[in-house]
């Protein structure tokens, strides 16, 4: 009987670790080795399986630091199957959904509201949660303009009443004669008057600019004060193509992985020219990330994969490479001693591209030679020169050369392998954890001990419960301080706005 219980516990633990790991990395998008369809089927299966078997833990995964795509999926699935929630879990589940939804970047949250309608999820709890979310938004009229179709979908689907002129605005639009809310009035005017569009958020103004046939360079120059940080970063390339347009931005304030993606998108000669600036920005971004969640590390070696497969896919262009580059800066900032070992050696990490075969064994051996406390491997887990060599190295190293675990090895994998329902590993003796942004590395490294299989289920449950408490407390605090901001500050610097891939 005991053996059966223990086995059940082991199965539960493995299922959960697999799920959380998948939720760290998978976004249902195309990867280098898998297509989008396979990824979506794979992750949907995992969601359905965990939801059906471990509902409470499924809800708590929301707090585990997983990526936004999976948070939205979990919220949707929980709302769709509210009837199956046990009475004692109801309150916690509701609070978790509300807190997670509030913490999502707005474009993802609003997209989720739209999917509620697509999937025909409509029940009392869902409506209440949507209503509460919309009431908690700092500036409803800004949302009404920027996410107009999505907000309208949510309002008509849930028969919600919004305050002020918003219901009128959503369903009559600019045909109404005049609005008293300034931003809504600007939006109406912008359909007739060129100068009014420069008061609107960029994404909305862009479409209206095309209607008024405003030249791209003039438009970019005049809309500049309205750009959010993410938009500024995204439009650097577009601005460079237009003569005389420069979008000034402080690169160091951009999120670390986003910045790495931007750096890697530049041509090699541009990177060479701007090396000092880019290097400083990466260091600054890494330092800022560490201020939020610091993990002091000792002697750390990083084995980083810059083989051709790190170029990602059309949907996730160069993401594995960007995660490796960002991890390089993050680890070098947090470790006392640090050395990087690339699969194809590079003179300067900032100049590299994804090229060549994957030989993980050689850099891993080089790293182990250096005798670090911790080796972090950032790779998609496919090694082909020779195949499976890295698994053999880790096996022999763990079982024969270092059974006392003086050196610990952790594998962080930015790529979800749909056929395995998990990120591909580098041998059974090394824990593999999924990662989407390098900023999550501290969280993910904390989770690695569960991936290794040594920690019991109860510990994993405690870990999740602690993270739930943290999320709920943080949610309450931010809810208490949320104040409606005026439109201009919101438009120029939406702090959490993170653009989709």
């Amino acid at each position, binding site marked *: 009987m005991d053996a059966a219980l223990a086995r059940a516990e082991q199965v539960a633990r493995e299922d959960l670790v697999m799920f959380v790991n998948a939720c760290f990395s998978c976004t249902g998008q195309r990867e280098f080795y898998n297509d989008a369809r396979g990824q979506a089927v794979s992750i949907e299966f995992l969601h359905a399986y965990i939801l059906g078997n471990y509902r409470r833990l499924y809800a708590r995964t929301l707090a585990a630091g997983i990526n936004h795509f999976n948070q939205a999926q979990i919220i949707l699935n929980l709302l769709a199957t509210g009837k199956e929630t046990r009475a004692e879990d109801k309150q916690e589940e509701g609070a978790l959904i509300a807190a997670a939804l509030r913490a999502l970047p707005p474009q993802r949250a609003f997209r989720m509201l739209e999917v509620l309608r697509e999937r025909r999820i409509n029940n009392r709890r869902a409506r209440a949660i949507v209503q509460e979310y919309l009431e908690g938004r700092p500036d409803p009229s800004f949302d009404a303009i920027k996410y107009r179709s999505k907000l309208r979908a949510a309002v008509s689907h849930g028969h919600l009443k919004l305050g002020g002129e918003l219901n009128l605005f959503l369903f009559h639009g600019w045909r109404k004669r005049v609005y008293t809310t300034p931003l809504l009035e600007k939006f109406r005017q912008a359909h007739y008057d060129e100068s009014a569009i420069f008061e609107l958020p960029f994404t909305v103004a862009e479409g209206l600019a095309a209607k008024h046939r405003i030249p791209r360079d003039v438009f970019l120059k005049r809309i500049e004060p309205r750009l959010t940080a993410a938009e500024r970063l995204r439009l650097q390339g577009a601005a460079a193509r237009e003569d005389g347009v420069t979008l000034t931005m402080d690169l160091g304030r951009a999120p670390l992985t986003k910045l790495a993606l931007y750096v890697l998108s530049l041509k090699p000669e541009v990177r060479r020219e701007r090396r000092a600036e880019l290097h400083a920005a990466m260091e600054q971004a890494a330092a800022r990330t560490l201020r939020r969640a610091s993990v002091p590390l000792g002697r750390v070696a990083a084995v980083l994969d810059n083989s051709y497969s790190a170029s990602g896919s059309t949907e996730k262009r160069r993401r594995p490479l960007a995660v490796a580059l960002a991890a390089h800066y993050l680890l070098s900032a947090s470790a006392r001693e640090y050395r990087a070992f690339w699969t*194809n050696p590079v003179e300067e990490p900032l100049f590299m591209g994804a090229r060549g075969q994957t030989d993980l064994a050689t850099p891993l051996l080089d790293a182990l030679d250096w005798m670090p406390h911790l080796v972090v491997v950032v790779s998609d887990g496919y090694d082909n020169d020779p195949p499976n060599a890295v698994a053999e190295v880790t096996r022999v190293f763990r079982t024969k050369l270092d059974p006392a675990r003086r050196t610990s090895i952790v594998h962080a994998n930015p790529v979800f392998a749909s056929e395995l329902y998990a990120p591909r590993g580098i041998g059974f003796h090394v824990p593999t954890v999924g990662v989407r942004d390098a900023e999550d590395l501290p969280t993910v490294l904390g989770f690695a001990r569960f991936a290794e299989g040594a920690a019991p289920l109860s510990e994993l449950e405690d870990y999740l419960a602690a993270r739930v408490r943290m999320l709920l407390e943080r949610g309450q605090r931010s809810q208490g301080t949320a104040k409606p901001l005026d439109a201009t500050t919101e438009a120029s610097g939406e702090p959490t706005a993170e653009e989709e891939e």
Partner: protein
Amino acid sequence: MARTEMKHILPTGLRLAPSQVWGSIRLVPVLRDEVRGDLRFARRTYNDDLTIVSLKGGLMEPGLKYISYVPHGLVMGWDDKSRSAGAVFGTQLHQPEGKALKVGPFTVRVLHRMAHREDKNRLRLLPLHLAMEGFLALHFGGPEVAWTEYSQEALSRGLDPRSEWSVPGWSSTAFDEALRIFEIHEQQVGVLIFHADLLLSAFIVSHPEDYRALHRALLEDFYGDLLLQYGFLGDVPPLSLSIDDRRVSSLGDLRAAITRMREDWGVFQGFMAGGVFGVEVSASTVYEAGPFHLQRFVTSLSPSEENHVGEVIMRGDGTLEYLKTYRLSAAQTRRAYLLKQLSQADWNLERAAVNLKTTRNELMLRLSNAGFGYLLKESVLQAALRQHQGRR
């Protein structure tokens, strides 16, 4: 007819790296450590539905023609004393080649020869078509002695028209995907393509940059039936070797074990490619381009072995500079084998049948089944058929 010589194709100057597998396709990178850079290849694409290559006679004159779909050709540049292939490589202006014709909605291009010299040190060749033409032309003259069984047509025109069919690379989605995800090594100059772990084709050039540019073009080349034949066989195993941990006591040992593993891979894959490397082939020179002799070759054509045709360039010291092969299907081998047997018996059916340990009637049936019925007189063939059926 060019002189034929027997020789062995050996991967001299080359090294095999561990394979990369996708589905049933295994691609083995071929690396070159010492790149001399005096022989370069570039791709020239033709956007025509059909290409006619005039083998004998002028461009638009009647004569022997080779007709096929040719998506691209290779332009080969080599060093002579005065200029270097590397320096001028890819800088020439490209003028339309041959003659383009419009036939209804289709376009047809007429080209000069399989290998056509364009400049002092530049040659345009149609890869694989060159070898295939050589294969089609085997015993093309037909019966040399006018034995009574042969039809009038066979005696006057030989095997003309002779045709074979093959499979374009893009007909296999697995092959497309395997090429897409393949990670090209820095010193890689070629690839061995295995399907269901049988050697399908080998492609080797002289310079790594050329290979990188030509890698995706492999999809447009043609391959043997084998590309489709085992299409549903499922995945080939990635073949992982393991390390004996009893023999490892330090990191240095571990490193040595990995090095050994890599060498084992090279040796094993060389063994897997034994159908081309090391076997005796009969080669004939097609073109002498400075120090480089472009040759086409065909293996033994014995039906019990795998058979390849291809073209090859070897340096004086035996270094393999260019190789492209095509694996013949079993039926293609059989056809070539029958022709070879007939030719060895001076086209005497009786004698050939004795050599093949069969009867004259059986041999005629085999010829007819192989698609060579048109060589024999209709009445003779029918008589053989009747006798065969009567006996059954």
